[in-house]
């Protein structure tokens, strides 16, 4: 089995889905000859031609709106938004049009698009290149929101997203793009959307996270005293969220910490916290804690590491929560 990083795993999934179904096509800024600014679509235009891997003019509302139309016309488009900070101009088409297509037409018209978006911080990028807007889209009925943390998951989840009959927002944590390789099967496989993964089993406290923060959590767990037993859950999908896996774990541990890069207030951590007490109220031994980005704009990169949750903050929170 080859060792692939996330960029390679996604590239492979795209290639396989394009081979599998000729209605699948890619469109976005710089994804053709240039292979995308992160090289995720490298080689695909050469292989599938300019009609199926399309460099578009610079307008995210155009990319999103045209993708909806392409889907209405029988294609399976995979638009790329170059950075999450540029989802802004596509917000209206994504939330008010793509996400409502099935509902508005009472099922007559569907919108099987997968929107690929590099997201999150930690790569010393300029302004608007390091944001985590996932909560906004998890609050959008009709839209699924998938966030893989590992190459293996990325490949299987992307295949599922592309085959999904409804719109899927697929956030790719750019900090992880090339930071690790793992064994990824050559052949095509799918991982169901909406199922979390328990990355470490434990009995004292549950840590729930997604995206690049998985690795900060793993680092934190390494730094904890040996006697502490942490269960780590990688949500992988935040909408629909796998509340069963979360609840089962917290019922066992009685303590929970959510970790995410996005701002605290109104972040998806709030939803997890609310769900936990709705489902595990009598098991909770301490309030659910949120270790998150601050309620400030994501700063320019000299202060980025002060903004992003890191192992130190996660460790401190786990220790405090255990002491409660």
């Amino acid at each position: 089995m080859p060792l692939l990083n996330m960029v390679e795993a996604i590239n492979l999934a795209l290639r396989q889905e394009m081979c599998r179904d000729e209605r699948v096509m890619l469109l976005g800024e710089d994804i053709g000859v240039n292979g995308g600014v992160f090289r995720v679509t490298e080689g695909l235009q050469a292989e599938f031609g300019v009609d199926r891997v399309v460099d578009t003019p610079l307008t995210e509302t155009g990319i999103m709106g045209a993708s909806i139309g392409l889907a209405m016309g029988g294609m399976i488009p995979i638009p790329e938004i170059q950075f999450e900070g540029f989802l802004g101009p596509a917000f209206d088409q994504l939330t008010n049009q793509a996400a409502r297509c099935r509902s508005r037409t009472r099922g007559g018209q569907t919108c099987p698009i997968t929107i690929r978006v590099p997201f999150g911080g930690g790569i010393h990028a300029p302004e608007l290149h390091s944001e985590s807007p996932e909560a906004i889209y998890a609050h959008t009925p009709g839209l699924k929101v998938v966030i893989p943390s590992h190459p293996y998951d990325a490949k299987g989840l992307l295949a599922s997203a592309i085959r999904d009959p409804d719109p899927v927002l697929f956030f790719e944590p750019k900090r992880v793009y090339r930071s690790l390789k793992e064994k990824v099967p050559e052949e095509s496989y799918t991982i169901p959307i909406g199922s979390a993964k328990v990355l470490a089993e434990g009995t004292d406290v549950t840590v729930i996270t997604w995206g690049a923060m998985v690795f900060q959590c793993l680092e934190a767990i390494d730094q904890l005293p040996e006697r502490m037993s942490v269960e780590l859950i990688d949500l992988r999908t935040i909408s629909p969220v796998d509340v069963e896996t979360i609840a089962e774990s917290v019922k066992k541990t009685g303590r929970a910490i959510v970790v995410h890069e996005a701002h605290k207030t109104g972040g998806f951590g709030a939803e997890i916290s609310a769900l936990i007490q709705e489902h595990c109220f009598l098991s909770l031994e301490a309030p659910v804690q949120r270790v998150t980005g601050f309620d400030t704009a994501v700063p320019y990169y000299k202060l980025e590491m002060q903004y992003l949750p890191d192992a130190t903050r996660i460790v401190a929170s786990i220790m405090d929560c255990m002491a409660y």
Partner: protein
Amino acid sequence: MPIKTVYQAQIESIQILDEDGKLDAELAQNTLSVDDVVGLYELMFISREFDEASFKLQRSGRMGTFPQNRGQEAVSLGAAQALRRGIDYIVPYYREHPAMFLHGLPMHQVLSYWMGDERANAIPPKLSMSPMSVSIGAQTLHAVGIAWAFKLRKVDRAVLCFFGDGATSTGDFHAAMNFATVFHVPCVFCCVNNQWAISVPRSKQTAATTLAQKALAYNMPTVQVDGNDVFGVYKAHRDALDRALKGGGPSFIEAITYRLGDHTTADDARRYRDAEGYAAAQARDPLIRTRIYLESVGRWDESKQATLDARAKVIVHEVSEAALNAEPPATDDLFRYTFAEMPEMLLKQMQTHRTDSIGQDPEQIGLKAAPHSAESSEVHHAAT
């Protein structure tokens, strides 16, 4: 160099049937037959009757907001007539019901729509159109995407997109025009310039002399047409459709007309509309002009009109009854179309009609869970 001309353009305006109902026979060649015009006139008239009836339904509290098409019938129908039904695709906005009628949409669906019944958006499978768009400009990009798909799939179909003068100011319109030309897709943009975007007059919407010149920014073929002239509208669209189907790419048509009604039933145009402009526009009513033409060629008279009057009333009455008497939608419809497969949490919301966790899981307080069935949520609905 040092100074050279790098670009030149000019825009033409067409009129075939003039204000007095006189036809330019030469330009009219290969456009509409007299039979076509009789059919279109009849539907114009029925649509007008439909608008009147809708107005009354709203005023008597039996319908929500409704946007009349009144005065714009020649644009809607002349344009739609240029398309092949069930083949070419119509992407309408909220004011273009006549075009949808011409292409076979059951008229009561439009009433049901404005009565707040989302089922009215389920377009019968054989028709080739999307539901009316509410968000101004958004649909122009969908039209381009559909046309692009037709091109990629090598099917011989084109798209007609309707939007208003106000829509030309949106970012989506700009993106749509750009994508359409860059990807050279078979899409016809019909800009219904009815002089108003609610209370904002055309002159305040843009400083451009014409809306047709918007297309110059994209090297898109463009023309202005008298929108109250059903021949002119038809010809402009027929030419554009032909070009699109021959691989000639998109076209833009500015159809100049006038919104003779209020913006919607929630609006009162007397607050902002100048009386003179309005009077002049009434005199240019496309129904008058088309009827004069038909009379002049001996195909229309008082008795035909009386028959049509009566027929329109019957049709519209039946349509209103159909909409008014529709079964109310099931509460479960609220949930059913969110995803192809309902996620667990949404299913629970549908089954319990509750969002609070105890309400969704009464066992938490020692009560038996509600039976999970479609009936239960109906019952719940009745109870609320």
